[in-house]
């Protein structure tokens, strides 16, 4: 789950990670009021679930409350790569002396949490990683033991952090890592990590991704979920219904069981000359109701000109899927072609259920893909 910068900073503060004083606002007037209370220079920062806000004009500095209100008026409602800005974070200006990059991620290959620190702060870290990897100091936390003091020490020396703030930087790193583990994050990025003129180490920006699988441990974080700014309302709707859906924007709706199989179906549709409207995985052991609901969701996309089902029964039973398809088709007045490829557990029963309906059967996934692409063009 992606969370906003202001939410990430709320979490950081809970773990004693220093952040600038800041408040979130939804109107230019609120922004002015906050800026008045803060006094002096403030930054007004768009809160959207996408990178590159700065370059897109989503972050502006204001010298006084009037200017803050004016900047907020420019930013609020703005479109950044398809995301609408509904909220801004108003932060006290900080006296930036040095900028560093700090990132913690789950390193799949190592099977451990990796911590990266670089003096190339504020820059595009992927570019730094590609071009001057020696500028990134790395350490891998030992599972169960966490990030050990000597590792923190080494990161600071290797990244060339100003020795004058070594103690503060070590405290920051420890607290950040505690936060990362504490909230079950899969990513925590502080870019830039700022050393201020008076020797404070502070998180100027913050990005935290929470592990969706761990949300059962963090019911309080559910409130951080914000689908409003998502790219497509269908993604939000899918989330509400508990359906594993990704909007892709093409004209062929795709439903299947198992992520790999659905992705392969996407590939086959593409090879057949079509464009996937979405990715939808009903998972293992789906019941008729979920299938009907999924069809409903896919069909609510006005671009969709046809839907293909690709089901390989294992735990998922063919008859359940067939029932769900008919239920969905019955509920809605379906005008577009629906091609169904059904095999595996209870495939016979499933096909029998679908016989005589408007649903078009297919033998293989390749055939199904060709068929739906052809028919959705008609």
């Amino acid at each position: 789950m992606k969370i906003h910068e202001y939410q990430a900073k709320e979490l950081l503060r809970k773990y004693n990670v220093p952040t600038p004083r800041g408040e979130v606002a939804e109107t230019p007037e609120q922004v002015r009021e906050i800026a008045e209370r803060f006094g002096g220079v403030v930054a007004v920062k768009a809160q959207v679930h996408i990178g590159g806000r700065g370059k897109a004009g989503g972050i502006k500095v204001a010298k006084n409350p009037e200017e803050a209100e004016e900047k907020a008026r420019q930013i609020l409602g703005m479109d950044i790569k398809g995301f609408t800005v509904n909220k801004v974070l108003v932060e006290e200006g900080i006296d930036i002396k040095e900028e560093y990059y700090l990132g913690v991620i789950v390193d799949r290959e190592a099977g451990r949490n990796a911590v990266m620190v670089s003096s190339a702060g504020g820059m595009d870290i992927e570019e730094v990683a590609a071009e001057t990897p020696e500028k990134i100091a790395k350490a891998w936390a030992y599972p169960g033991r966490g990030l050990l003091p000597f590792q923190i020490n080494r990161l600071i020396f290797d990244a060339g952090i100003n020795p004058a703030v070594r103690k503060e930087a070590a405290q920051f790193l420890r607290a950040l890592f505690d936060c990362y583990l504490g909230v079950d994050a899969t990513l925590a990025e502080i870019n830039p990590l700022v050393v201020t003129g008076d020797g404070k180490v502070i998180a100027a920006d913050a990005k935290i991704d929470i592990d969706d699988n761990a949300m059962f441990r963090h019911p309080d974080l559910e409130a951080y979920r914000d689908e409003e700014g998502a790219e497509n309302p269908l993604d939000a709707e899918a989330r509400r219904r508990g359906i594993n859906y990704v909007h892709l924007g093409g004209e062929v709706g795709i439903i299947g069981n198992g992520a790999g199989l659905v992705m392969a179906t996407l590939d086959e549709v593409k090879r057949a000359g079509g464009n996937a409207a979405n990715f939808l995985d009903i998972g293992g052991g789906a019941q008729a109701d979920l299938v009907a609901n999924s069809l409903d969701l896919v069909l609510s996309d006005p671009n969709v000109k046809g839907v293909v089902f690709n089901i390989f029964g294992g735990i998922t039973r063919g008859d359940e899927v067939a029932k769900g398809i008919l239920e969905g088709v019955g509920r809605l007045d379906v005008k577009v072609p629906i091609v169904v490829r059904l095999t595996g557990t209870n495939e016979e029963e499933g096909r029998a259920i679908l016989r005589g309906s408007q649903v078009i059967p297919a033998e293989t996934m390749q055939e199904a893909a060709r068929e739906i692409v052809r028919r959705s063009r008609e």
Partner: protein
Amino acid sequence: MSILLNKETKVIVQAITGREGGFHARLMKEYGTQVVGGVTPGKGRQTVLDDVPVFNTVKQAVEETGATASCIFVRAEHNAADAVMEAADAQVPLIVCITEGIPQQDMVKAVDFVKQQGVRLIGGNCPGLITPGDAKIGIMPGHIHTPGPVGIVSRSGTLTYEVVVNLSRVGIGQTTVVGIGGDPILGTRFVDVLPLFEADPETKAVVLCGEIGGSDEEVAAEYIKSMTKPVVSFISGRTAPEGKRMGHAGAIISGRSGTPQAKVDALNAAGATVADSLADIPDMVQKLLS
């Protein structure tokens, strides 16, 4: 021969008294797997599936049954990672974790623990493994498999079934099919399974089913360079747009690594024929076998 699993393997099922665990324990048993026991804390001394004893702890189950493998259906919220560690602590040599949705930090700890204990974990979030005609541990439909000369290793469940069905249909059977799972943190990776196939005299060719995300296919490609046996590969999600999450947490394209093209290039460079479509795999394997 086969890898990892055969008729002699004695399997216990953790959470055997649950809906999923009980259902699949029965299917495994029906397929011919020696299901020697189950574990559910608090339900020890019961018997399920006619003659399968249930124990309170894995340690007790191992002591009483001599189990050499465990299949875990414990739900993520019920601390599936702890169930994995319990099996590892009891020195179960092969642990297969079917459970999906385990938090990544739990898996980081569990995978490290399993390595320290010197045992093998397959999964989590995997369909398990099957040696056709001998035994299966997991949730794959047994009947689609046929004994034969092809080893299969895959990150995806249903996709693998598709490959198996297509191969079986043209008469190409499998030595062992291993579903390693699609999560970011896994007990076993491609590169851990390939050497087993390479060393197995009955395996004449290998099919590797990858997908977008991570860099396991690239790492596997490095190993494939040194293999004597032919490898056919397939990468699912090649047309998926960057940065879109496709259900498997692993299927995120992040940064420079994990792009489908990088995987395809690496596999091609290693001499592992890459199939553009699943439908092409049987022909390609047939050619390599003959």
